[in-house]
């Protein structure tokens, strides 16, 4: 380790990333890619975190973790399955390591790390496994398989890891030494058996107790002495040195407490455990005060005592661990999350009581090929294939009894994926039922996945919460008890609706005492039970076990549930304490919080990344990790000053991808260490010994050959990089990304189509948490204006983008010029500028959709969420309030001429409203917009709570399908219900019906102010209440429609109120075409991979962030903008891109120009050069995957370092041919 410390000054101050799960890997890779040195530490003996256990991820139901690997400078990192391992020139991976101490301040930390002693030398271990065969200690539950399998004391923590690093579970090891003898490489060194030095003195006046304790510990290998009285014990302590005394309290001659006191005088270091049959709190406290370590009550069973003594022994012998100090400029904590243990609470589901009740994680291990059953879905009780499996959602989430009133956000999709997987695997023979409360599929593609699960795979979803599981003793099946509301609801409802329709004198739910509409025989709800073969509990998330300790070390505050706070907003935008939830205005003096501006924690250079902040899925964790890396990058770049980034090593050497087959026969040895040593092979660049470091036992002929390097040298010409970033769109995302990149020292060209920057923040006054957005916007604007490295072009747009990653050339045009010349797109005479840049970030955002559904346009009293927000903003300016006060009962005045407001902004006197109805999912999650817009439910909650604050007597009804209040926003959902807001669920096939009752039918236009008194429209909403099982009618003064989010790319619809069928007239501006990237089916921008590369577009070098990717709130947009900035900086931080040595090429003489390789290339690295009529390969974009070589019918396409002959021989060897 000293060696490393010496090297550090050369590399510059690096970062420490805590946790090598998916988040930590992402953060580390980003920083390493951008040329910073990273120390990646992990508590567990293997990397990969929770993702190493999950084989399948939706929406593809596959893994795709390798897609996180660097696309540029590939030679600096390993290029094989990331679940197996990771090497990078700039990353030091330290397993079994924790943080001990952090000293110093921002940018200058000295961090003390403690690495557990590695008894198996990873440099020497070849993973042959002979040690495991001889190890006599078995039956240790395997954490990797969630305890469904066992391992020995020497074992592989992660069976698929490369290199295979055997580890000793030192707590279970008996130090017999069998493995040392068996190891052919002499890689194992066992610690000295210190148990022999751990002398125990047993003091008890009962012989039988002394004897039995002696016997137990003799067996465990501890030396034990006995004393039958206190006096004798003290004499023995004076004579000999003891590590531990087991001391009885009640003894005839001398009381134990007295013995304790005197013994401590003689030997202060002696550890004492008190034993007594007469336990009182007083004596316990008394003895603890006098220095006793523990207090155990007789009778005790041997296991309890031995375990206790073992742990005392273990805690005393940490001296084997390696403690080292590392200097760091920044620290990223990405320790992930833990999961709820259903065993810990009341456990009414019978987890661990009934063998067929398992957690979702255990199920995940069951379907995995490396799991206990090898991927077979079977009942743990009897090994039979189950016929029916139930998933129970919200186990340990949204449940006050388990201490988690929050929603864990990920379990809904988790369960859907598992159910789909089960249906796929079983060919539809296993019936799958998911019991849920709200199916929270709030991501862009989640709703489609849910739909597919329900329709294509026939996963049954039931909206009900089971309370317990009981097993039938005879059949062994599991019985679930539920309330059932599915008693032919549709039938009842259609009857009642017609009744309602015909009944003109129907009663109406008025403001304060809602009444029944129709007297239907209403029996919709009943008690039921259902029988299953297996039950899977969707366990919720819990804070990482490391959160508490790290919080103490770093000062990062924890929230009420114990998750680290991720303060995304600057101080000026924090909610005002007095008025959270509705804070508006521009005062920026809310300084009560201790979180620092811009950072994600309160020490300036300590950041929270990945899922550590809680309740995030893979995609969000990856985004958060990149965002944290970006923040760290800013600090590190400022520290680095003018020093060049760590350049990726140039070499033709080993690249992990070059060994496509890693069968058990082929073992990568400790020579990998050589790969990590930057000094090697530098001089001889023509040596294309691609898979040369793969040592093979059986097929040395296949691999290990040196391939001809002639083509290699031609390809590896570095591509120079234009170190500037073009950012399109200056909303909150664009501005965040611009500031971050500029603060890191790079130039930014910020292009905004409109003449004002800020995007949606111009009307969005706050979020649910009450963050002050006007203040945020003002601060951002000021910073952008003043920053010398940001060049803002507002009123310009991008019309052309040529070039490739690192070297783009874009044309921007002034939008004004266009307008003057008319709307036609044939104007090429506008003012234009050409910009050269190395990367692009698209942050064009999204806007609110309009709708023609629910009588929208027929009354001024039907508004959208955005109009609602604007109206709420309006009330905060007093003049309008005063104006309204003079108008009695002027509830709504859409286009009042005397009010100084935008014509489209309704002016509402909220104090006079009586009933407000909000309909969620308008045109969303259906054929018009098949995705969930994510922000509408929280917006509705925000508005409803604001309204209640203005006017507590107001009746608010929120009609929803699934309340999407994921994560900690669940709190506000509860608050809303608490404040008396009524939530009614409807289904997509039974939407509410809206009727407008005009106040005065003679005067429809409503211009006349005198008439307005009678002209208040009444909106009647009719829908079925599922619990009561009846059709009810609500009369509202105001109807707010959650119309959802559409990409800003959509042009051609207006918010004017009489635009019928607005959604049908959507057109798209075609930015995707200009930029050469792809849209998804919803006209947002397509991510390169929704999970693993969530801010990358389909074209290398172009990144997307904010709502341009898909609906997300302001906080998430800011985070994604930081992530995109990080990804862009990975490219522009280097002045050259060094293509990988392993890239594809074409033997033109053999090529028949069939273009199959062009179509098949997943990275768009190939195209037909029409001038030369040859296939060109872009070496920077080619990832060396070999798809082109495989598909080429003429063997014209090849990957350097791999000959056909070589591949065939390798395959033969692998299959044992």
């Amino acid at each position, binding site marked *: 380790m000293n060696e490393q410390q010496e090297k550090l000054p050369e590399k510059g101050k690096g970062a420490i990333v805590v946790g090598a799960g998916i988040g930590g890997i992402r953060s580390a890779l980003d920083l390493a890619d951008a040329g910073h040195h990273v120390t990646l530490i992990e508590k567990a003996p293997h990397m990969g975190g929770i993702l190493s256990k999950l084989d399948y991820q939706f929406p593809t139901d596959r893994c795709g973790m390798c897609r996180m690997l660097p696309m540029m400078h590939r030679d600096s990192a390993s290029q094989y399955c990331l679940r197996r391992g990771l090497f990078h020139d700039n990353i030091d991976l330290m397993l079994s390591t924790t943080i001990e101490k952090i000293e110093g301040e921002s940018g200058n930390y000295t961090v003390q790390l403690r690495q557990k002693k590695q008894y198996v030398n990873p440099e020497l271990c070849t993973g042959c496994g002979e040690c495991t065969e001889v190890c006599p200690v078995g039956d240790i539950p395997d954490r990797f398989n969630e305890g469904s399998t066992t391992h020995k004391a020497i074992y592989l923590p992660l069976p698929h890891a490369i290199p295979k690093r055997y580890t000793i579970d030192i707590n279970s090891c008996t130090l017999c030494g069998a493995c040392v003898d068996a190891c052919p490489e002499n890689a194992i060194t066992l610690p000295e058996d210190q148990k022999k030095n751990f002398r125990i003195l047993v003091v008890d006046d009962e012989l039988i107790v002394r004897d039995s304790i002696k016997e137990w510990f003799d067996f465990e290998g501890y030396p034990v002495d006995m004393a039958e009285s206190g006096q004798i014990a003290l004499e023995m302590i004076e004579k000999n040195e003891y590590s531990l005394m087991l001391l009885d309290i009640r003894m005839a001659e001398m009381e134990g407490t007295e013995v304790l006191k005197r013994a401590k005088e003689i030997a202060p270091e002696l550890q004492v455990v008190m034993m007594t049959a007469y336990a009182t709190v007083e004596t316990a406290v008394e003895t603890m005060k006098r220095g006793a370590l523990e207090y155990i009550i007789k009778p005790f069973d041997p296991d309890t005592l031995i375990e206790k003594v073992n742990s005392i022994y273990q805690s005393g012998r940490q001296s084997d661990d390696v403690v080292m100090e590392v200097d760091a400029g920044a620290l990223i904590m990405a320790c992930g999350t833990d999961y709820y243990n259903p065993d810990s609470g*009341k456990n*009414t589901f019978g987890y661990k009581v009934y063998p067929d009740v398992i957690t979702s994680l255990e199920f995940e291990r069951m379907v995995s090929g490396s799991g206990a059953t090898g991927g077979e879905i079977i009942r743990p009780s009897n090994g039979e294939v189950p016929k029916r499996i139930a998933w129970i959602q*919200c186990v340990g989430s*949204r*449940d*006050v*009894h388990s201490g988690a009133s929050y929603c864990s956000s990920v379990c809904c999709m988790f369960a859907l994926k598992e159910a789909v997987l089960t249906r796929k695997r079983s060919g539809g023979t296993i019936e799958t039922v998911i019991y849920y*409360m709200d199916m929270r599929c709030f991501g862009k593609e989640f709703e489609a996945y849910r739909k597919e699960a329900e329709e294509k795979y026939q996963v049954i979803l039931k909206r*009900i*919460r*089971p*309370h*317990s599981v009981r097993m039938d003793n005879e059949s062994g099946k599991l019985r679930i*008890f*539920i*309330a*059932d*509301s599915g008693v032919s609801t549709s039938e009842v409802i259609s009857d009642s609706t017609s009744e309602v329709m015909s009944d003109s004198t129907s009663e109406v739910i008025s403001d*304060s*005492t*809602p*009444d*029944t509409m129709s007297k239907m025989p209403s029996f*919709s*709800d*009943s*008690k039921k039970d259902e029988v299953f073969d297996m039950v899977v509990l969707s366990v919720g998330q819990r804070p990482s076990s490391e959160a508490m300790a790290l919080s103490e070390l770093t000062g990062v505050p924890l929230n009420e549930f114990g998750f680290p706070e991720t303060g995304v907003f600057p101080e000026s935008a924090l909610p005002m304490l007095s008025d959270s939830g509705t804070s508006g205005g521009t005062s920026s003096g809310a300084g009560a919080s201790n979180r620092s501006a811009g950072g994600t924690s309160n020490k300036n250079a300590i950041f929270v990344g990945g899922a550590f902040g809680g309740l995030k899925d893979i995609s969000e964790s990856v985004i958060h990790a990149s965002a944290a890396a970006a923040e760290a990058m800013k600090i590190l770049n400022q520290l680095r000053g003018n020093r060049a980034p760590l350049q990726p090593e140039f070499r033709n050497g080993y690249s992990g991808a070059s060994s496509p087959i890693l069968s058990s026969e082929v073992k990568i040895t400790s020579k990998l260490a050589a790969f990590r040593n930057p000094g090697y092979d530098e001089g001889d660049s023509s040596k294309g010994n691609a898979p040369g470091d793969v040592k093979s036992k059986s097929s040395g002929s296949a691999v290990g050959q040196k391939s001809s390097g002639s083509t290699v040298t031609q390809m590896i010409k570095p591509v120079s990089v234009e170190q500037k970033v073009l950012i399109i769109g200056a909303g909150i995302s664009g501005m965040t990304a611009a500031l971050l990149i500029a603060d890191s020292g790079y130039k930014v060209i910020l292009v905004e189509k409109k003449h004002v920057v800020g995007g949606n923040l111009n009307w969005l006054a706050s979020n649910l948490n009450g963050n002050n957005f006007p203040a945020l916007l003002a601060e951002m604007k000021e910073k952008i204006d003043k920053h010398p490295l940001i060049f803002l072009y507002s009123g310009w747009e991008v019309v052309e983008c040529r070039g490739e990653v690192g070297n783009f050339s874009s044309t921007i045009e002034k939008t004004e010029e266009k307008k003057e010349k008319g709307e036609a797109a044939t104007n090429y005479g506008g003012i234009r500028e050409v910009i050269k840049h190395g990367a692009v970030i698209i942050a064009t955002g999204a806007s609110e959709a309009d709708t023609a559904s629910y009588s929208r346009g027929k009354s001024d009293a039907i508004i959208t969420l955005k109009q609602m927000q604007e109206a709420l903003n309006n009330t905060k300016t007093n003049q309008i309030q005063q104006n309204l006060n003079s108008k009695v009962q002027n509830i709504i005045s859409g286009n009042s001429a005397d009010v100084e407001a935008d014509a489209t902004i309704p002016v509402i006197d909220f104090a006079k409203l009586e009933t407000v109805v909000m309909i969620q999912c308008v045109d969303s999650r259906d054929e018009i917009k098949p995705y969930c817009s994510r922000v509408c439910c929280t917006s509705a909650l925000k508005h409803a709570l604001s309204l209640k604050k203005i006017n507590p007597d107001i009746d608010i009804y929120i009609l929803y399908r699934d309340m999407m209040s994921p994560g900690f926003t669940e709190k506000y959902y*509860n608050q809303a*219900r*608490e*404040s*008396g807001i*009524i*939530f009614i*669920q409807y289904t997509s096939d039974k939407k509410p019906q809206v009727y407008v009752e005009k106040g005065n039918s003679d005067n429809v236009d409503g211009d006349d102010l005198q008439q307005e008194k009678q002209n208040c429209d009444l909106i009647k909403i009719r829908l079925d*209440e*599922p*619990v*009561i*099982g009846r059709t009810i009618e609500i009369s509202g003064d105001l109807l707010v429609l959650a119309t959802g989010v559409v990409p800003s790319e959509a042009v051609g619809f207006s918010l004017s109120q009489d635009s019928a069928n607005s959604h049908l007239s959507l057109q798209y501006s075609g930015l995707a075409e200009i930029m050469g990237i792809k849209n998804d089916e919803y006209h947002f921008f397509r991510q390169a991979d929704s999970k693993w590369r969530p801010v990358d577009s389909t074209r290398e070098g172009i990144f997307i962030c904010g709502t341009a990717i898909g609906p997300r709130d302001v906080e998430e947009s800011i985070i994604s903008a930081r992530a995109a900035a990080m990804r862009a900086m990975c490219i522009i931080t280097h002045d050259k891109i060094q293509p990988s040595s392993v890239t594809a090429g074409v033997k033109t003489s053999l090529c028949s120009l069939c273009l199959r390789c062009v179509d098949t290339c997943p990275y768009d690295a190939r195209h037909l050069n029409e001038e030369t009529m040859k296939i060109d390969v872009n070496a920077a974009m080619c990832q060396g995957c070999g798809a082109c070589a495989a598909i080429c019918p003429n063997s014209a396409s090849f990957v350097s370092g791999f000959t056909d002959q070589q591949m065939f021989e390798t395959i033969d060897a692998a299959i044992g041919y």
Partner: protein
Amino acid sequence: MKDTGSIKALLATCMQCGTCTGTCPNADAMDLTPRHLWRMVLMDRADEIFESQTFAYCSTCYFCTLKCPRGLPLTRAMSMLKEVAYKNDVKTFRKSGAFYGSFMESVRRHGRVRESEFMTLYFLEMKNPLLPFDFASLGLKLMSKNKVSFSLPSGADGRGQGNLDRIFKKVSEIENREEQMP
């Protein structure tokens, strides 16, 4: 006045998950399930609530309270409904009310229940001469197992041993005070 407002406030965070219905051992006997009933309370449908007998069937087992993910005091809410029904002499609750009333009357007199007196009081209250026959078989069964004590009913003003007049008076004072407070 059948005011369920205070009960509604107790139940505000209910999310209609149905755990209460699923847990209720008496749900099958109820005309409305607990979830249904709570929904009615939240929607201020006092008339329908007191047409139902659901709350009378609550045996106060506390299972729903124990399991409610929102931690709502459901058993207490049931008792509050019973209270409102008793005070307003709701028709559907009259029988149960008479039962509770007779029980408490016996307790007031002796500090414990005297079964025969309790039954007599109940039959008198119900004013149905045929009612005792409905209970005949149950009564005989209980008598055969020595579960019914035969002491003569004492007068309402009986000052026998264990008389709880003063406690009852104090309780009603406190209750009245609490009612006047808001």
